């Protein structure tokens, strides 16, 4: 595993850049565990201080040190994105592989449900959930709801690969070797859909973090919980740019761009690496 990492860094410049960008953001987010201040408290520092030796990222109009504020925000947003991506990947892999391999009425039922989720507009539903749940709407609940909407396109993609795999001779061979359906799906077919899973994992993270920002900016989330979205919400509501507190907007945006670009580069380079064809070539086939 370690040698794989080393090879990727050495031979793939996209991976190296992506890793540096994402790594920097992740380390920054992890620092929040050692934060000297509670990021939910306000007026603990002098408001509207520009970046300086004391306050690296400056302070905002609510009297919070932006360095620790953003660190906590990125931690929460990344955890949120990963939760949504993991949960929705589990659903899309299960649905896609089952539907493609088993076929018949299972396929028709699963794809019918799939199409309903494709058709339903997600944004109004999320707003609706916010009004129903109000203060019970924590970020894990939001992640659960979004995971339920984040899988259908990817499930279709996985299904199309599974359909092709179903007719390969090794699948029939596995059947006659007495392997059970779950075993065939997990051990024979899963490696072939991993490239899709990885690239959609990153895409899904980007989508969910982006949507969370949208919801937060509009005020439809728990605003006391620091996330990338709520940081921007408070910045906008205090007219940060107009007042001249530019660092309140510019620094988070730079960090977001770094995160998104890094995730994208990682997705691209990992994809190339775990693609079965390139794997086979490296094995010397």
């Amino acid at each position, binding site marked *: 595993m370690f040698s794989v990492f080393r*090879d*990727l860094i*050495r*031979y*793939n410049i996209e991976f190296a850049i992506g890793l540096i960008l994402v790594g920097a953001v992740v380390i920054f987010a992890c620092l929040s565990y050692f934060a000297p201040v509670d990021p939910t408290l306000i007026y603990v520092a002098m408001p509207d201080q520009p970046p300086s030796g004391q306050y690296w990222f400056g302070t905002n109009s609510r009297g919070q040190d932006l360095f620790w504020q953003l660190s906590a925000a990125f931690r929460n947003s990344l955890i949120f994105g990963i939760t949504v991506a993991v949960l929705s990947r589990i659903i899309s892999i299960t649905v896609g592989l089952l539907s493609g391999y088993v076929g018949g009425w299972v396929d028709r039922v699963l794809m019918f449900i799939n199409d309903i989720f494709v058709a339903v507009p997600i944004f109004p539903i999320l707003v609706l959930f916010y009004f129903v749940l109000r203060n019970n709407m924590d970020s894990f609940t939001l992640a659960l709801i979004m995971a339920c909407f984040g899988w259908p396109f990817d499930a279709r993609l996985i299904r199309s690969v599974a359909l092709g795999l179903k007719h390969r001779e090794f699948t029939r061979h596995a059947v006659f070797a007495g392997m059970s359906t779950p075993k065939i799906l997990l051990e024979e077919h899963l490696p072939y859909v991993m490239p899709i899973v990885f690239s959609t994992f990153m895409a899904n993270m980007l989508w969910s973090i982006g949507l969370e920002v949208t919801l937060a900016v509009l005020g439809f989330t728990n605003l006391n919980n620091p996330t990338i979205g709520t940081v921007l919400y408070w910045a906008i509501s205090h007219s940060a740019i107009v007042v001249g507190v530019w660092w309140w907007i510019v620094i988070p945006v730079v960090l977001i761009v770094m995160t998104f670009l890094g995730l994208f580069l990682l997705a691209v380079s990992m994809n190339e*690496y775990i693609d079965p064809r*390139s794997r086979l*070539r*490296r094995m*010397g086939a």
Partner: protein
Amino acid sequence: MTQDILTVDGLKAYYQMNYFGVEREVRAVDGITMTVRKNEIYGIAGESSSGKTSFIKVLAAAIRPPMRVVDGSAKFNFKNGPIDVTTATPQQIESIRWRHLSYIMQGSMSTLNPVRRIGKTFEDFAKRPLAASGTPYRERVLGHLERLKLPADVLNAYPHELSGGMRQRVTIGLATVCHPEFVIADEPTTALDVVVQKEVLGLIREIQQDMGSSVVFVTHDMSVHANMTDRVGIIYAGRLVEEGPTRQMFFAPKHPYTAHLVASLPRIGDTTQRPALEGRPPSLANPPAGCRFHPRCPLAIDKCKTEVPPLIPVANDHRSACWRWQDVGPLVKPHQANRVMA
């Protein structure tokens, strides 16, 4: 020698690859020297990953990375002047394509554009090289189709409307409509059923004799070589191991590998036990030293393990690369031997 249309001299073509730090060099063609004469069908036989596909890629001037010609040359002696495909510029290759050098490929579906009518495809292929248009062009194409026993209305058909045999005849038509001097046929009948296969083979032979062109015919199927070719060359692990007139190759082979290939062919009317060859074809990335066939060879001696046997004349027009070619067993049945003498 003006009789030769193709002269290959010490050709070496390697694949050099590097995937995430794993470097590999595959010596697909490792020192092949041979000639193809005017007006003959030269058969190339070899197993999968023996290097035969790479060899004809070089001949077809389709040398693309990761494959690289490391050494040697492959010179064609066309009417419009000699050309070495290993050093020619893309423009030079463009100028000989279809009119002088042409190909018949294995999958007809990949040559024929599925959404274009056959007639349009003929225009794409032939209009420019033939330098004709209007009535002369049409007459030329129709005349050619007639020779291939194809009805004129195939020109209005789409590829999927034709049967497999018809499609393969159309690809042969495309490859030969410009009367090329040299045709490379790569397993053109492998995907066809036996009845159609025989028809298509007969057709290729007929057209070749009509046009007086040379054909390099590649297939792993020895019984096709027996009926199709004038001479056969056997490629094993990137090298030419034996070459000779088809009849001699089948009745008096001088290399144990050829002898095995011929002896193992089952025949209707004969149920005697066929021998099987043990071992596996060698990896081109790491071939055995000496004669590359020695690990599987029933005649191997110590010399074979260290010294590479040269391809030397062993009979009239017959070359073999084997230290013990004189000991290659008499496979020949008595009634067949008489015919060899005759």
